[in-house]
């Protein structure tokens, strides 16, 4: 494995595959119902602890719910919100970036000024303020988290388009009377996609962490639906008596984000061999 993949890439792929499978088949994979409360079994430590019980491998929370099952079901929220937000942010950012780069002029100025404006804003505060106002529904989370990330896509797309616009093949199609919109869709987009895929992969780590942060602050998907951030928020109240509640969901989060980050770096290295020697292996 390590001969064919650089360090951690195989590991990351494994983690992400596991994540996708558990998210898709949560009801089949999880040993327990994630929201059924059993007060008799509350705050049980993980199985390897002397007070632990193999019935609940990672222990139980303050309401006697199985932690492992909640982490498994929690992966659904993280992945669903994360992926949907990347789609929203990517679509918005790429459209604006391509528009700015292709047409230039005033339009370009306005879009880039908007980007600057957003960059000058502490994203998390904006997200918190909007979610607090609109209410923490799935759609609101996706839109807010997605919009908070459009600038990176826009900047990369714009830069790529700027250099492509002057290329002979675009000129040639223009000379033949090719329609602008068609040039963008058929000829520009396919050529700028690979750096954007890298951005999207890295952005997944960001959207998933932002979702968990909002959940942690009580502004994510609402209970009883398990989410990693929400579980960490519960666990924070029981740090003294039950360290595991605030530990394992965080490990899941970190492994997920780490895998997307590592994978993004790896794809970038593959796509741009010039960087391969310098970037992290």
């Amino acid at each position: 494995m390590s001969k064919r993949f650089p360090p951690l890439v195989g590991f990351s792929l494994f983690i992400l595959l596991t994540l996708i499978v558990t998210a898709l088949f949560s009801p089949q994979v999880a040993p327990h119902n994630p929201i059924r409360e059993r007060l008799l079994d509350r705050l049980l430590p993980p199985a390897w602890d002397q007070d632990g019980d193999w019935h609940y491998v990672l222990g139980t929370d303050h309401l006697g719910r199985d932690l492992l099952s909640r982490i498994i079901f929690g992966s659904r929220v993280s992945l669903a919100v994360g992926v949907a937000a990347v789609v929203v942010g990517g679509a918005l950012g790429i459209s604006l970036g391509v528009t700015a780069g292709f047409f230039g002029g005033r339009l370009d100025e306005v879009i880039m000024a908007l980007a600057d404006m957003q960059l000058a804003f502490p994203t998390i505060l904006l997200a918190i303020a909007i979610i607090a106002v609109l209410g923490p529904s799935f759609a609101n989370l996706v839109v807010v988290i997605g919009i908070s990330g459009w600038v990176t896509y826009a900047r990369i797309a714009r830069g790529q388009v700027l250099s492509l616009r002057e290329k002979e093949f675009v000129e040639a199609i223009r000379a033949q009377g090719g329609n602008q919109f068609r040039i963008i869709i058929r000829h520009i987009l396919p050529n700028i996609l690979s750096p954007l895929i890298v951005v999207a992969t890295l952005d997944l780590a960001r959207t998933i962490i932002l979702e968990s942060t909002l959940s942690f602050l009580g502004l994510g998907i609402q209970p009883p639906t398990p989410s990693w951030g929400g579980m960490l928020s519960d666990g924070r109240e029981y740090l003294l008596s039950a360290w595991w509640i605030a530990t394992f969901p965080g490990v899941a989060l970190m492994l997920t984000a780490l895998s997307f980050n590592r994978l993004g770096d790896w794809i970038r290295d593959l796509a741009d061999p010039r960087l391969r020697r310098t970037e992290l292996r």
Partner: protein
Amino acid sequence: MRRYLIRRLARTIFALWGISTIVFIVMRLSGDPAVLLLPQEASVEDVRRLRQELGLDEPFPVQYLRFLGNSLRGNFGESFRHKEPAMRLVRLHLWATLELSFAAFCIATVVAVPSGILAAVKPNSLYDHAAMSLALVGQSAPTFWIGIMLILAFGLGLPWFPIGGRGTWKHLVMPAITLGAFAMASIARLTRSAMLEVTRLDYITAARAKGLGEGRIIWRHALKNAAIPIVTIMGLQFGALLGGAVVTETVFSWPGIGRLAIQGIYNRDYPVVQAAVFTAAVFFVGINFVVDLLYTLLDPRIRYE
């Protein structure tokens, strides 16, 4: 240079205007603070009177224009909850946030830059892999979770540091590490790749051929040319710290403007939220501006027309 500065300033003002407008709209959409501020048994008449007092009964555009005019003068009105000028509250909390951000930034830089350089000096060594894997972890772990884990380990398990509040230097240690972790990881990774890029260049080979000591080559010759991307990311990260402070301050009950803003959002205390966000944005924009100017010092070839 002059033209560049003017353009840049215009953009900055535009950005600040846009931010305050968005915050104004979002906060006004969030429901009626008058209902929230009064006790449950308050009559309709009470609510009406309070709305009048707070200026909430006027038409939306009037409220907006008054808000803009006042915010130009740094006046964001009185906090609904604390009955104090919002800007005064923000100023009182600002110092705590700056202290925390500055400490986090220092820790991050002091650890990250040398680690990145060392990793670049011996690429693909065991040290390189260990440091960069650690950096990847630091970049991937959510800030609030790092805070919780530190509390668990060094606040409760080994009771070395207090788990919340502000006071002695001991109070500062865990929040600063928590807040600085992400910046540390990013700066370390970028330092490494910037240094690797530079040490491949011919002038470094020439310096080696001349027989210069390796230490001198790395610290004097290579670092100078690798400095631009490193300073860029340090600037960006310092700005990002202000955002991360929101979460860190919540986890550690640190009395800064991030926590103030969050409480303001929960209480629908518009003036406080507006003042806090505006202040944070001013700092963020200001830092980026300074970084841009630093480029010209670091690399005299860069001239803004």
